[in-house]
């Protein structure tokens, strides 16, 4: 069983749709878990979220949930929607919006994100224990969207907390950041540099059939595609990147975090592993 952890309602399918299709083609079980699948508590948008919705034409959460349900159906994947609100809708315990500008949408975690990361860590650990996946796929955090960075941090922590029982963790490169060669932006370039020094790349070869399934599934996110790809030919961009990974073929890329356990494991984790050997 493979567990694909998606920060938002589209990331896993956009980035790993081919691998999910490949898993299903081999009669394997694939589960797509979306962490931030909830809207604003009480339904009221923050002023910035209202502006962002209007500017980018963001659809309401249920429209996006229905699209994700359709995409997962097309891939034959099971799905889970956790009820954490996206950063755009989050407020601190005083009721203040977490995000007031685009800069705050794409940035490193702040101290007031700790509580969310802890809650997400706990939820992910719960699901990993419950599903016992052989491999968990999570986002690298390219582009530094706060929800992606938070999911990455929470997933690494959950894996670390599980110690010897933890499944294999592979980090996937998020689309569209990887495909649109956005390494020129400082955040993405920094994330890639960090990745190359702390992880080893894996290329996953796909068939044309897997690719066709991925594209059909991405097409389900019809309300999202314009704001993600800004009018670019997304099919061509994705294909070009996939061909770049596998000369003469198609692929998707993940990274194995080589320093993951040693860097994040605390003494308790070390005890568990040493006692098990």
């Amino acid at each position, binding site marked *: 069983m493979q567990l694909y952890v998606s920060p938002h309602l589209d990331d896993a399918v956009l980035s790993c749709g081919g691998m999910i299709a490949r898993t299903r083609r081999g009669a394997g079980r694939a589960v797509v878990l979306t962490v931030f699948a909830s809207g604003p508590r009480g339904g009221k948008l923050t002023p910035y979220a209202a502006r962002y919705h209007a500017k980018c034409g963001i659809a309401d959460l249920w*429209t996006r949930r229905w699209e994700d349900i*359709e995409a997962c159906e*097309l891939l034959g994947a099971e799905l889970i929607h956790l009820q954490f609100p996206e950063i755009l809708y989050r407020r601190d315990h005083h009721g203040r919006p977490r995000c007031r500008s685009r800069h705050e949408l794409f940035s490193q975690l702040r101290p007031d994100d700790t509580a969310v990361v802890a809650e997400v860590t706990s939820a992910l650990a719960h699901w990993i224990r419950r599903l016992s996946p052989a491999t968990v796929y999570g986002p690298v955090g390219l582009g530094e969207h706060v929800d992606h960075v938070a999911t990455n941090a929470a997933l690494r922590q959950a894996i670390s907390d599980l110690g010897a029982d933890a499944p294999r963790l592979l980090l996937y490169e998020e689309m569209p950041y990887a495909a649109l060669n956005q390494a020129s932006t400082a955040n993405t370039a920094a994330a890639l540099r960090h990745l190359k020094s702390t992880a080893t790349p894996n290329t996953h070869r796909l068939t044309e059939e897997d690719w066709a399934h991925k594209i059909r599934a991405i097409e389900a996110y019809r309300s999202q595609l314009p704001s993600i790809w800004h009018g670019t030919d997304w099919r061509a961009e994705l294909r070009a990147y996939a061909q770049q990974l596998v000369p003469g073929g198609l692929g998707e890329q993940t990274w194995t975090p080589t320093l993951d356990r040693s860097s994040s494991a605390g003494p308790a984790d070390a005890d568990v592993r040493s006692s098990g050997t």
Partner: protein
Amino acid sequence: MVEPAAGPGPVGVQTITDLPQLIALAPAWRVLSDLAPAASVFQHPDWALAWCRTLGADSALQVQAAFRDGELVGLAPLAIDAGDGRAARFVGAPLNDFNDFLVHPQDPAPVVAALWRQVLDPAAGWAALELTPIRPDAALRINGHLPNLTGAARELLPVQPAPLLRLEDDWEAYRARLPARHRRQWERTLARTLADHTVQVQPVEDPHQLADAVARFERLRRSSWTARGRLDELVPTQRDDRFPQFLAAAAAALAGAGHCLLIELAIDHTLAAADLYLTRARSALLYLRAFNIEAAEHSPGVMLAILGLKLLHARGYREVSLGRGGEAFKYHLGGQDVPLERVVLRRSP
């Protein structure tokens, strides 16, 4: 017998009374079924032949086949139940949600007239003719009406509803049209389940997989009726030991022609509910439903109704008949009544 026709040529009608003859007609029947605009899956040869080979084995076929210029242009698929007062019924009855003649769209009136002439002929040998259930747009109607027969009593049975749902091209437009109370309730149920369980919506349409899937479906359906102590509420034909065999054979054959789709809902990797749809072009008919009583806390039937509609919508279906019966959920989903007429003609002894 030759009927004068205003169309390209005269219409001749042949009576078919044995199965091998009917099987031989299947290729032309398929072509006619594809051409007939109002035909339902219940008039498709794959459905009818599966019934003839299983549940209908005890009935005497009396199928009227109309030809014009050597081409099959009409079919009145009837069978006489010798054990039930020589009642003539449509092949597949009482399992069919809609019954009708199959009629070529070009110059249909002479074909319908010729078929009726044969069906109503005393030589047909029936004591009762069950014209039920018949849609308002059925091809067998003459000027919108079912025929009268001199010397025969006409028994009118209560009209049955068959709610029909039309879906807009934009799913969100349909979603917005749903009664707010029900939409919120369904979406809350779905959100709660998606947060606490893995959910999978799985269409099964491959003929090779469908026979097994339909057998699984039928076991689930029977077990839920049995667990609720309501098995005897199913129509007797559905309790017949041969029914699962009929359903699996019909579904697999229809799937081969793209006319059958089973949608399964799994919660935590366990089958929670399944809906069997019969399809034609951009129309689908919700034929039978099953749910796992152990998953009742998730309201899987309600969830699958809306999830199934989403799946059908994504595949281009824009008209969904919710089948015979006026269950509340059909109206909550936006179904509008289509009245099904039910008439029995009885000849004096």
